[in-house]
């Protein structure tokens, strides 16, 4: 398959489908399988770019989540199970805090439950990391509807500022060492904060000036009435969505209707705003069958796991088995590793 960028929306749908699966299953084998599938696809289809290195950060974050969850589980977890591993000194709590325990007997079951709950979060993080390193944030921005474009730019600039701040922190810390000043401790951090913020702010201002001279934010003539209409639509839409969500959670029947109407109003507002910008797109990423395949396998994996998983952990623990439907669907989500076009190599000439 000749190389091209896969539509970033396809990668996000794929990753969120897998992520949804991870939040619904408590089967450690299935969780491991989802993480493996996500990792496999990232390894196969990750482009050579700075932002694509985000994956390893997310993996580290995921491992951290598991460790933290297990520690919390040991100290604060519900005392269940019979296979005692060791006993922690327990702290007696007043009666009004009944139900909360600190310390006490630590059982293998408790550790296992904490591990599974941590793994759910960890696999979700891995899926989000996969989307982040597969789909270019800038290309995702290009795929946004015109009305959301300006908000999207602000979000992307904010996201790109984080790594820039990290680079600035490193530079300033190196400079501090060269001045013979301590580079560790609270005092060092507070003294470094000023130059770091100053240089990051300079970066942001330079970027804003450059974008301004390149036509960012140019609007066509807007009638005052139209602006008021758009504001009303978006505001009413958001209120509708909020009330609708509230009602849905409270299991009221009319909640769904309110939610749909609110969304429609908000989308209308965005469409009206979209007409103000004369923006066009240079070589937009097309949506062809590989996009459908990637997004489809992701959604399918999410749906299959949703159907077959119970989402609860029962004690005593039993060795998990792999449910046929969910396993097949999750395995199918690895297909994009080969059946999508590879990303363009940075040094290719065509």
């Amino acid at each position, binding site marked *: 398959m000749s190389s091209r960028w896969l539509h970033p929306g396809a990668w996000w749908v794929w990753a969120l489908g897998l992520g949804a699966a991870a939040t619904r299953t408590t089967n450690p084998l299935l969780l491991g399988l989802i993480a493996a599938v996500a990792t496999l696809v990232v390894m196969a289809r990750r482009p050579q770019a700075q932002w694509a290195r985000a994956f390893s950060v997310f993996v580290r974050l995921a491992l951290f989540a598991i460790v933290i969850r297990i520690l919390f589980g040991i100290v604060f977890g519900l005392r269940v199970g019979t296979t005692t591993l060791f006993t922690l000194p327990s702290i007696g709590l007043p009666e009004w805090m009944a139900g909360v325990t600190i310390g006490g007997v630590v059982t293998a079951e408790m550790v296992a439950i904490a591990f599974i709950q941590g793994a759910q979060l960890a696999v979700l993080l891995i899926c989000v990391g996969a989307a982040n390193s597969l789909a270019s944030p800038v290309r995702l921005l290009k795929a946004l509807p015109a009305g959301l474009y300006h908000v999207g730019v602000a979000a992307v600039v904010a996201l790109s500022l984080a790594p820039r701040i990290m680079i600035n922190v490193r530079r300033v810390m190196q*400079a501090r060492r*060269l001045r013979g000043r301590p580079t560790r401790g609270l005092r060092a951090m507070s003294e470094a904060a*000023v130059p770091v913020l100053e240089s990051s702010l300079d970066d942001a201002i330079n*970027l804003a000036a450059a974008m*301004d001279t390149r036509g960012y934010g*140019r609007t066509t003539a807007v009638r005052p009435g139209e602006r008021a209409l758009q504001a009303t639509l978006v505001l009413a839409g958001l209120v509708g969505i909020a009330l609708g969500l509230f009602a849905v959670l409270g299991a009221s029947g009319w909640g769904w209707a309110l939610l749909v109407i609110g969304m429609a109003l908000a989308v209308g507002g965005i469409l009206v705003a979209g007409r103000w910008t004369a923006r*066009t797109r*240079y*070589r937009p990423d097309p949506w062809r069958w590989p996009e459908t395949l990637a997004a489809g396998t992701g959604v399918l994996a999410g749906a299959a796991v949703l159907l077959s998983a119970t989402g609860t952990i029962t004690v005593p623990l039993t060795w998990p088995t792999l449910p046929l439907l969910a396993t097949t669907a999750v395995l199918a989500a690895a297909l994009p590793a080969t059946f999508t076009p590879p990303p363009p190599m940075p040094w290719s000439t065509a």
Partner: protein
Amino acid sequence: MIKVEDVTFTHDGAAGPVLDGLNLQIPEGDLVLVIGRTGCGKSTFLNLLNGLVPHFTGGTLAGRVEVAGMDTRTHAPRDLAGVVGTVGQNPRAGFTTDTVEDELAYTMESLGYAPDVMRRRVEETLDMLGLVALRQRPLDTLSGGEQQRVAIGAALTSGPAVLVLDEPTSALDPTAAEEVLAAIQRLVHDLAITVVMAEHRLERVIEFADHVIRLDAPIATLQDPADAMAGHGLQPPVVRLGHALGWDPLPLSVRAARRRAADLRSLPFSAPARRTGAAVLASLAHTGVRYGREDALRDVEVDLRAGQVTALMGRNGAGKSTLMNVLAGTRRPDLGRVAVDGRDPATLQGGDLISRIAYVPQDPTDLFYTDSVAAECAATDRDAGQPAGSALNRLQDLVDTVAVDTHPRDLSAGQQLALALAIQLAATPRIVLLDEPTRGLDYPGKVAFSRWLDRLANLGASVLVATHDVEFVALVGDRVIVLADGEVVTDADVRTALTSSPAFAPQIQKVLSPLPVLTVEEACSL
């Protein structure tokens, strides 16, 4: 094409105007060079043309600026985007996308060009600026010269009538600068674009200019380049040579000077010796540094000697900064050894470090962490355990006047450099490392700076200067190390190094070759 009428501009809170009573008319299709001493308002003038002044910067503007028939009072920068293309001082800071092709299309997208027009314009621009091979490269993998050409291309695709360039070659090595200037010249010739450019490195650009605007002249006007250069403090070496020898008309290019200098080349010349250096203060042995899969330094063997100024040269990305970082102990080498004063620099901290190594990074403001020059100097005295006022004395020794309550970031480039040196030299270190110190310095600033380095070397310090500026190296260098692709390709005395390669030859050397003359002073002694 550009009309500036009675323009006076004052920054918010400033005591006086930066630009005062400016009246100019720039005709279509000219390449106009804006010159003047550091801080005379060159960037402000350029931003006047694209509307950033006053729409983005604030401040008070009186008078009228009209670009291609559009008044900047009533048109914001984004409305002028199709008429004025802007390339800022640091192209990387202004990139809004992540690949070359997308960057080229960005302005057209904002202005709503039809997809097929965009596609055609991008292809044309790729060809025109020689970027075809780079079209899908992520912008952060490009070299400095390539980034500059992409930024120019990105400003061009929307078909502007005016191109505004702020210091387009200052950060570039000589070869990359030539590429960029050749591209700019082609635009002026082929597309009749009006180019307004500010540049400190006059030796690179003066010969291409149709007109020169001296912003620090009492009345700034459009001048003929040769007239503007006569009796002006900012003369590049070749003009200074012509001036010193009383040539008329003044030569602006090496070629013109070479024609006049035929009889000089047959004179005998005994090259004055430069410092050879004494004891070895720092050394790298078989040093290698890798970033990921790439070698930043390979098997480097370098000794730095006391009482010598060594210039570290080479293309952008050749490993100069890495070598500096290894010597300063910021980066541990992956292979080989590094010793400064017999110690591993990476293990040095605090007083041990500042009494041995002074390092001024590319951006000196990294070193500052207080809000005034006085506070910065006081902190330095405390750290180095010296009587109060020592750092300030050193600073006042380096620059004539500096207000002590100024914020370090508001100082001019030359003053920032001076403050950084005043701080870093506190504990009398004998290794002085300077990364691209002459960026943003004009000729008088460079001459003053070269005198400080001279003095440091004569006091027994070993000075290592990473730089692209061959004229500066000709002025102050004793020895030149050239890096290419992480390897040392030249390590020789300055005269041998600068006379053996045309890429690194200073202007005077090009004029008087084969005589090994490097500076105007040496040429005048013929």
